[in-house]
């Protein structure tokens, strides 16, 4: 099937304009991270000089590689935890019929509505009492159960034709096996999406890691970015932008690399 040329041009035009608009803030930040403070302060749009100073400074100010590694560990652990727990729960909500299911689902959804900022202090106390301050457990465990993920996977599982479950039931395939061998592979797209989402949101957390750690051993990279900003002094935009770029780069690279896989996953999702 082919699309006529004029239509193609319209699409490319729209795509390009949208891309520029979407990508501009990141590009601007990127170019600023190589500008001197003077250039930035005087509102230059095109830098007069190119400097790596900003990056050097960022790397000097905190143990960046350590932070990056911590972020990576925390994000991956949370991601896996969320995938397991959410898919189990979503399965129950879609394929198992039991009394109180709908109510329970609503309770799950309701948990999404508890503002995190409101529960942050009690949670901090819990972590403190368990002795999990400055541990990966403390950083990750509270995020394993995820109503959002359950909800997302529920929507996705609901798209799996009922007949497949029926065919499995007749073949004598138990729920757990069906979950493993049919539901998970068929919902691969959503799992990938949720995984990426979980990874990125964990990567991007800053209030909780700041609170649940007191020293640099398990701290994540977002805290570094926050430290770059002072409260009332003049912002060193170049340094801050360099920090932001460093913080953003791993996730963007992941996204760019994962895009192919993500796309493939998305495309295979269309195979129903």
């Amino acid at each position: 099937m082919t699309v006529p040329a004029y239509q193609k041009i319209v699409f490319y035009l729209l795509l390009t304009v949208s891309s520029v608009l979407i990508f501009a803030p990141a590009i601007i930040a990127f170019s600023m991270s190589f500008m001197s403070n003077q250039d930035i302060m005087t509102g230059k749009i095109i830098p007069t000089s190119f400097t790596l100073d900003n990056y050097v400074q960022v790397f000097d100010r905190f143990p960046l590689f350590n932070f990056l590694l911590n972020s990576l560990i925390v994000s991956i652990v949370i991601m896996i935890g969320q995938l397991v727990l959410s898919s189990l729960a979503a399965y129950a909500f879609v394929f198992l019929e039991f009394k109180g299911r709908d109510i329970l689902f609503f309770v799950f959804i309701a948990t999404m509505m508890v503002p995190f900022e409101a529960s942050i202090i009690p949670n901090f106390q819990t972590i403190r009492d368990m002795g999990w301050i400055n541990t990966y457990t403390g950083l990750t465990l509270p995020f394993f159960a995820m109503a959002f993920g359950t909800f997302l996977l529920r929507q996705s599982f609901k798209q799996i034709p009922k007949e497949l479950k029926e065919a499995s039931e007749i073949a004598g395939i138990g729920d757990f096996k069906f979950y493993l061998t049919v539901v998970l592979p068929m919902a691969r797209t959503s799992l990938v999406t949720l995984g990426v989402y979980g990874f990125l949101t964990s990567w991007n957390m800053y209030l909780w890691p700041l609170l649940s750690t007191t020293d640099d051993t398990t701290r994540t990279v977002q805290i570094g970015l926050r430290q770059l900003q002072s409260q009332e002094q003049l912002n060193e935009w170049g340094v801050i932008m360099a920090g932001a770029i460093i913080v953003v780069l791993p996730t963007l690279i992941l996204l760019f690399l994962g895009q192919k896989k993500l796309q493939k996953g998305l495309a295979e999702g269309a195979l129903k």
Partner: protein
Amino acid sequence: SGGEDASNEENTSNDSNAEESEADDEKQVVTFWHAMGGAAQEALNKIVEDYNNSQDKIQVNAEYQGTYDEALTKFHTVAGTDSAPTMIQVFEIGTMSMINSGHIEPIQNYVDKDDYDMSGLEENIINYYKIDDKFYSMPFNSSTPVMYYNKDAFEAAGLDPENPPATYEEVEEAGKAIAESNPEMKGFALQAYGWLFEQLLANQGALLMNNDNGRSDTPTEIGFTEEQGKSIFNWVQNMIDDGTFANYGTNGDNMVSGFLAEDVAMFMQSSASARNVIDNAPFEVGVAFIPHPENTEREGVVIGGASLWMVDGKNQAEKDAAWEFMKYLQTPEVQAEWHVGTGYFAINPDAYDEQVVQDAYETMPQLRVTVDQLQSTTSSFATQGAIMDMIPEGRRIVETALETVYNGGGVEEAYQTAVDQLNQSIKNANTARGE
């Protein structure tokens, strides 16, 4: 430039920090929580670093805990548990909250035990932190606001750059002159920042809270009169009417950028910014005392910034080690370095005699003004500063009121709302404490 210097120093310090923390089992570890971000963090790290290198008994670990607010909240949550640090930096308006927490040990105990002489500190600082004749915390980073102005712009407007305006009225006049000479430039900017309002009150001798700014008894309502309080609002209103006021809301960075971009000729800001502003300005920067209404005497400023608190419940050796470190921070050499590196005062006046400071004054004579303003402050309840646990909330009330005026709301209503809310907030705080 200055930034580069700092970064080079920081480079070496950080590396050795990592090495050391691994190889010091016998050393007494002191955990030091702070809220210094940006350049101040660099300077602080360097000092801690030097201290750790200077001796082999104590290892201080400086750990960033977010903003002043966040650090304090976090402390409240871990106070009394093993996770609590040995010492913590808390901003000045957190003083009452710390005392009330019950998890601190007054620094006075150590002063007495050690016979340590606190009298060498700046008078203002002593005034603020000595409560009921007792030091609860060790002053550390102190700042006051000053007025920055663009000397070049002054010149262009036919004003005397060496004789900056001292009163509200003079500021207004100067603003008009500047706006006239350069329609692109506004005269004055006042960041909507409660701290600045407090300082402007103090400068006209007004109290923020009653009961002598809370020094004789817990405050029950605000301490300034309608005339005193409103004078500030009216001043701003006048400049807005003249079209000489620049509104940057609550954002200090925007304001400084505006000043540097020559959008505004004068603004008030913490002395801690001095180095930064001077370094980055493409024109000559002047620093002046903050203004006061013509019909009042200049009373001076209240000390701002933060102090260091000893946390209770740690073993004595650890606390002693922390005390050693606190004392180290008071030494003239350290204070000199701190002063020059950040723009915070040297709380120990002896530091001003240090060579580094002298050198810095040589190149940046403006830095002196900040010290002069502090030292010429008249000692009174007003300049001693208010202590009350709801001041952080009070600041936000005032900020909203200021912004209302900036954005065209009436002074009358904005002021009245603020006063009502302040009084309500004081009442709430007292009820919450069960008083």
